[in-house]
């Protein structure tokens, strides 16, 4: 019996090789694929069709929640919980609420940006199959990897491996699950 694998990974020397390979794999019809690089490559987003993410929406909602909470907190304390009448000045003194409302907006928006980033990336994730490839440690230094996962409907160990070899990689290896 053949041991199941997570997928096949091809190693490239430079970003151009990776982007071309990602594009070719996408054209071949592969969809369950991911690229790994030591720095962000804008062209990869086009090649892998990674354009929309929900982070801006999450941050917007975080900001709105933070600002609203900040304002309600101040309104509650100065108008309802601890009203002080100073020479008949209005209790609902909104100009003095501006600063804290602003700060709370920023705080909540930034918190949701960081937590949203982690949530959308599925981090922290201490174990991932690609770490089983010994040379993958170079993905954080100077090498570029393209991985086609075994769960892709088009995946076939021999054919996919042959296809990856046509992309002129440095090496193609199997990824243990």
């Amino acid at each position: 019996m053949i041991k199941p694998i997570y997928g096949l990974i091809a190693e490239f020397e430079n970003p151009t090789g990776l982007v071309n390979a990602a594009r070719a794999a996408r054209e071949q019809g592969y969809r369950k694929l991911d690229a790994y690089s030591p720095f962000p490559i804008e062209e990869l987003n086009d090649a892998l069709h990674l354009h929309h993410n929900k982070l801006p929406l999450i941050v917007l909602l975080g900001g709105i929640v933070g600002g609203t909470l900040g304002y309600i907190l101040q309104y509650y304390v100065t108008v309802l919980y601890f009203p002080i009448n100073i020479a008949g000045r209005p209790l609902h003194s909104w100009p003095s609420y501006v600063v804290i409302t602003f700060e709370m907006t920023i705080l909540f928006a930034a918190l949701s940006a960081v937590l949203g980033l982690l949530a959308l990336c599925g981090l922290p994730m201490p174990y991932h199959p690609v770490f089983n490839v010994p040379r993958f440690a170079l993905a954080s230094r100077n090498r570029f990897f393209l991985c086609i996962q075994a769960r892709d409907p088009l995946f076939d160990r021999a054919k996919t491996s042959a296809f990856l070899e046509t992309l002129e990689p440095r090496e193609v290896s199997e990824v243990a699950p």
Partner: protein
Amino acid sequence: MADVQHDPHSRAARTVIAPGYTFGTVTDQIATVVLTKRTPLFWFAGISVGITLLMMFLLAVGVLFVKGVGIWGLRTPVMWGFAITNFVWWIGIGHAGTLISAILLLLNQTWRNSINRFAEAMTLFAVACAGMFPILHLGRPWLAYWLFPYPNTMGVEPNFRSPLVWDVFAVSTYATVSAMFWFVGLIPDLATLRDRTHSRFARFAYGILALGWRGSAKHWSVYETASLLLAGLATPLVLSVHTVVSFDFTIAIVPGWHTTFLPPYFVAGAIYSGFAMVLALAIPLRSVYGLQGLITDRHLENSAKVMLATGLIVAYAYILEAFSAWYGGNVYEAAVLRHRLTGPYALSYYSLVACNILAPQLLWFKKLRSNPVTLFCSSIVVLIGMWLERYVIIVSSLAQDFVPSSWSIFQATRWDWMTYVGTIGLFLFLFFLFIRLLPMISIFEVRTLLPQAKVEEEVEG
């Protein structure tokens, strides 16, 4: 070389990063500083100074806890004295880090990539030092949590109409957001350290901190969005923080404080002193660790230019301050001006004018601007000048206010000095720990500066 100079793209690249680097050498050079077993003597010397001063700080704080704030020179009417001066000075220094990491990112200034990491670390540690002072100044610092609104049995809450409470929110938000922004920037580099180290413990520690980062394109895409959003949030935040700090003064009616131009003046002064601190740190670091190829002369020159520009804004503010005191016709404001020019704090005032306005004019000369030694000296002069500026604003305005019978001259005690110099020790201690344990230059952002990082597009056929 002649060809390179004619090509505008590679000319920009050449000055931001020295030629000849590859992804591998950039990674190794920055990571080696952290991963090497051989620690340079400079580091031991630096952290020894830091620890010594930190011990002095702990002593001063210990005595303060036992005896109370009376050991400082705080006497009516100067109840803010050194503590608030140091608070404003430190928090201002922090601002350059956020400016470099956030505002210059939004403005697409790629030269920031190799200085933003340690500038942000500087921000964090400066804010930590700044935060010490208002808390120690409380008198009962163990009750500092009373500053925050929380459900309590005392039946009272903070007064949200007070700028001091605004300041609590502004500074704590600033510290939190700066820490998060810094950590998010570190994640890919922590993954690099995890993959490069040979020590099991370091691999475990960096591995936990890296959260399992693997450089996936899907992650990078979200990561880039997150960086831009955080930069967009940090930009108004950093401008707001020193504005709110200046509200502590402007909203009071003390002559010399109660003016509308203080917020922009404070923000410019903050960036001014912050860039001075960036230079004071970058110049020794790059020569000790041989990082001249990454922190190039162009970085120093750009920072010097920012310093000169913000210094001119500060100079304009001084002129405006004097002009409005004279032209405004308010006798108390005029008296403050007269006291500053001829009173007991005149020496501090003239020193700050010399340090902040006159000395930086030398930076107009390219020769002086591109010499690291003169640049280092001028940044130290600016740091001293900016401290004097806060001292003069706070102390001289309080010492001689409306009623001459309440006037009193502030005398700093040795505990004042020990606490102030002690926080410099805290800063140095944290900073030297940082350069030993974490990459002081953002590795992945420097990789993007390399010409090899460009994807060569095929001609569409």
